[in-house]
């Protein structure tokens, strides 16, 4: 069996485990979607029971789980009670939005963190390094929510950026480049909120990893051969420091994903976050599970990508 197939099997197993656990926990929680209807005097108990039977909520948890699994093999993630439509068609577009947000935020956070971290390591102990350390330290102390709210306030005051949603109302009338610009403007706020939350951690890790490399004999040897400083820092040091940073990449995707749930709700980004929140409150069983499953899948794909990157970047791992 190749490493890749083993990893994919491992990932399937992980998804299976997560689905079982979330199914069990949601079933353990008191009440379900139709229970809420019972409180409504306008709906007769016959209707409620009929709905319950229709949704399959009268059956036991293992049976429901088995049926869900069977439908999953057809690519069907179940049915949303609240929206009265297939959960798949509800979740997918939202998942794509979340993915867009998370990937952009990951890229931005790393693009900020790498040069700042390298600079900070190179200037270790100097004034600029101390400024950077103080800045990352204070950003780390601020909760993500506060950052998001501050950005929201800033956008609302200055009207530079739109403060919610993903596109403008008249999006369809724009040209292609206009559409892109509009999307980017709407992305800016949530991406900035996420990246600002993540970047300080990344800066600190980049600084630590690069600092170690700057002390290593090969770096000194390369400097002794007269290789210019920019090449040394951005090619030699960064490549040598890459291993822990790539592992961190997998982790950063995961934590950005969970942070995005919150930021999406606060800044009105139509991703998985608001959907999941509503679905949990409404006990919309299959939507909750579908959203959790997709987040898990993204997370697993993130760490899988990181491992493949590691293979590609470090020849020593390739031969081990």
């Amino acid at each position, binding site marked *: 069996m190749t490493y890749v197939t083993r990893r994919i099997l491992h990932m399937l197993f992980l998804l299976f485990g997560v689905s079982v656990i979330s199914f069990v926990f949601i079933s353990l929680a008191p009440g379900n979607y139709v229970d809420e209807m019972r409180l409504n005097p306008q709906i007769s108990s016959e209707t409620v029971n009929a709905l319950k039977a229709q949704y399959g909520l009268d059956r036991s948890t293992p049976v429901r789980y088995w049926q869900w699994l069977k439908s999953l093999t057809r690519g069907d993630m179940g049915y949303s009670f609240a929206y009265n439509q297939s959960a798949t068609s509800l979740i997918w577009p939202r998942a794509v939005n979340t993915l867009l947000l998370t990937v952009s935020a990951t890229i931005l956070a790393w693009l900020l963190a790498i040069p700042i971290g390298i600079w900070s390591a190179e200037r270790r102990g100097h004034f600029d390094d101390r400024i950077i350390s103080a800045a990352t330290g204070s950003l780390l102390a601020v909760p993500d929510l506060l950052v998001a709210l501050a950005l929201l306030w800033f956008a609302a005051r200055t009207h530079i950026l739109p403060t919610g949603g993903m596109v403008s109302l008249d999006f369809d009338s724009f040209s292609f480049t206009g559409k892109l610009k509009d999307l980017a403007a709407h992305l800016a706020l949530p991406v900035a909120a996420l990246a600002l939350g993540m970047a300080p951690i990344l800066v600190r890790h980049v600084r630590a990893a690069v600092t170690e490399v700057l002390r290593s*004999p*090969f770096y*000194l040897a390369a*400097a002794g051969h*007269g*290789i210019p400083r920019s090449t040394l820092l951005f090619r030699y040091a960064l490549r*040598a420091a*890459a291993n822990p940073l790539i592992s961190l990449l997998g982790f950063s995707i995961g934590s950005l994903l969970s942070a995005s749930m919150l930021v999406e709700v606060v800044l009105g980004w139509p991703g998985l976050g608001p959907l999941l929140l509503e679905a949990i409150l409404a006990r919309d069983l299959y939507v909750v599970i579908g959203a959790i499953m997709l987040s898990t899948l993204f997370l697993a794909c993130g760490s899988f990508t990181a491992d493949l990157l590691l293979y590609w970047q470090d020849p020593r791992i390739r031969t081990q």
Partner: protein
Amino acid sequence: MSMAQISETSMVKSDADQSATRSASSLEHPCISPFLRVQGLDVEIVEKEAKPIRILDGISLDIQKGQAIGILGESGCGKTTLARSLLRLLPSNFRIARGSIDFRGADIVQMGSKELTQIRGTGISLIHQEPAGALHPTMRIGHQVAEVLKAHHRWSRKKCMEAGRATLAEVFREDSNRIFNSYPHELSGGQRQRVLIAQAISCRPSLIIADEPTASLDLTTQAEIIQLLKDLKQQLGMALLLITHNPALLPDLVDRVLVMYGGQVVEEGPLGRVYASPLHPYTQDLMRLRPSNAKPRSLSPRHRLSVIEDPPGGTSGTHPGCHYEVRCGQRVPKCSSVMPEEKHIDESRRVRCFLYEH
């Protein structure tokens, strides 16, 4: 051509400057003027709120074009610091406190970082101590050699790679193409050492400093590396500064030897004369460490080796006198209170010991 002229004219100037500080200067050959002249070099470790620790103390040395010089000393004597000082590759808490390093008419101590980057690799290059750690772990060998060439030439990437391939072929008789595409961890210690040598010679510097080039290598590989250095010195006419703790490596390879102890040059002279009749007590003790028998038939297994005895209190003397005093078998009372000056015994030898003050 014009470069040579410039360096010659400024050399005259530095000669004139130097006559004033004759006592600190090292020995000169009458006809050839040195292209590297180190004078009175002091290097210190500076820690916050602490007295600086002197690592190198008044080092003077001259290297002529194409000459090979050996530096002999045990660990902690400052020989690696000296190697790095010549390229100003010192850690940030090290400081060159005094002295000058004149290289082709310019003082390396005063040089700006741009000139310095230019000199490293093209003027002076350093073969680093540990071949295992001195190569980038995740870059291909060919790329690493090509980077050195790229740093000093306005060449295309392709041309650098080709030149790198050619340089590797100079140090590997066979297999250089496979090694070009390999990663460091795929090579043996001896092969890595050859790659370091290839990097060092790639831009044809006029001086190569080899810091313990054979430590941690197998015997057969050691012999091969020494042979390679001999061949390259012959072919390329570069000057060589070979730094080692092992006196056995130097014969046949270097003309002169400097013996270092406690951050100072305690003895200098032509290799044959220093080995045959060492002057300084430390050199004498060092020479006594040679393997007892050289002839295969008279080998006696399981014998005691001669040693330099350590005093019970440790070897780090704190008194103002000679650093070797605590281990020295020929000490006189003033050794512990006064530091002996360098003394020129004849036109080619100098020593730092009271035994030779008449």
